[in-house]
């Protein structure tokens, strides 16, 4: 269900900023929240994969379905990887690192696809330098947003409610 939220947020919920990677703010925040709400390895990756397939079915994404599915999946894998290593998503630094990695992984998929089809490395380096920087910044903002959401949910007793239901 959080995957549905990820897709809808990606389609509609955008900050009015025209810079590459800015969609990662809400997107990465939701992936961080998904990983904290379902505390299992791979939870963010599964949510990301499902949201990627749904986005592809809806025709979202400007570089085709393969790019869409792989970008979504990579973002989830990035978030999961950091969470597996760092553990506790209650700390702001963990959320920020996870979201930053997720947003960079998303960009990395695009770069890998470009390398795969043989676009010269120089062109890619030139073209992707500025987006790489903005992806780091917006990823970090997304992680901090995820941390704020998790803190608000914790204060509202959401995690106690979940533990009770389980």
């Amino acid at each position, binding site marked *: *269900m*959080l*995957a*549905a*939220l990820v*897709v*809808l*947020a990606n*389609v*509609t*919920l*955008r*900050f*009015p*900023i025209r810079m590459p990677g800015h969609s990662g*703010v*809400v997107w990465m*925040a*939701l992936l961080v*929240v998904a990983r904290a*709400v379902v505390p299992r390895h791979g939870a963010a990756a*599964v949510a990301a994969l*499902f949201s990627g*397939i*749904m986005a*592809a*079915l*809806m*025709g979202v994404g*400007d*570089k*085709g*379905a*393969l*790019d869409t*599915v792989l970008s979504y999946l990579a973002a989830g894998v990035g978030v999961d990887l950091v969470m597996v290593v760092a553990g506790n998503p209650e700390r702001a630094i963990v959320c920020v690192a996870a979201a930053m990695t997720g947003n960079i992984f998303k960009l990395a998929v695009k770069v890998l*696809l470009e390398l*795969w*089809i*043989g*676009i*010269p490395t120089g*062109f890619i380096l030139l073209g992707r330098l500025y987006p790489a920087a903005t992806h780091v910044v917006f990823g970090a*903002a997304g992680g*901090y*947003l995820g941390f*704020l*959401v998790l803190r*608000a*949910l914790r204060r*509202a007793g*959401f995690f106690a409610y*979940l533990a009770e*239901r389980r």
Partner: protein
Amino acid sequence: MHGRSLSRLYATRPTSCAVVPDSFLRRADPRTKLALSILASLAVMLPLPRLVVFVSAYAVLVLAAGLVRQVGEQVWRIRLLLLVLFALDWVFIGAGFAVLITLRLVLLVTSFTLLFATTTPEEMRQAIERLGVPPRFAFVFATTYRSLELVRSEWLGIIEAQRARGITLQETREWSWTAWRARLAWAVSLIVPAVVLVAQRAWSITEAAAVRGFDSPRRLPARSLRLARVDHVLLAATAGLFAGLYIWQ
């Protein structure tokens, strides 16, 4: 939330996926279409002469399947990138290389249209299950897709409730710390209730599925996919094409 995003959310009809109803690929098994899409993506590794042959065959398939509009839309979305890349490649490397990169990019961007423009979410769920993914995950995918419309309406409800309370995002390009704090606070006020509602919905679905015996060890699928003649023809033709391209080497 600023006006453009809100109108986009009202306009979004998430569950109305753009499946082409009269395409002959609708009769093909999703696994066959997945195989064709993957093979088309892998064909980007071919050198120019063989790539031209493959793209020609691919164009015939797209034409026969009635997917010209869908493929055209995908290409139109990247027209600027295609033009810039073509010009740069031509100027710095050569015309042949520019054509090669353009064909590869077009193929990679459009290859999965064969699958996603001709497969319904339900067929996708069946395919996911037949590919060995546990039924629980396939069920989660199908349920989530069907719930998109519901989640969307709940999301709209939250936005309208927050607007009624005066919580809106001012459309500003300011980069100050205060502006960013306001943006994040606005996003928190939207995401927190959405996550709570979605979690409650997920629990209800889990309980309803359990009551209906979803976790039963003797659970059988209501319908399962089978390869038909059209699948065999498509797979054989693709295998023949790749074999021909390999021999041509």
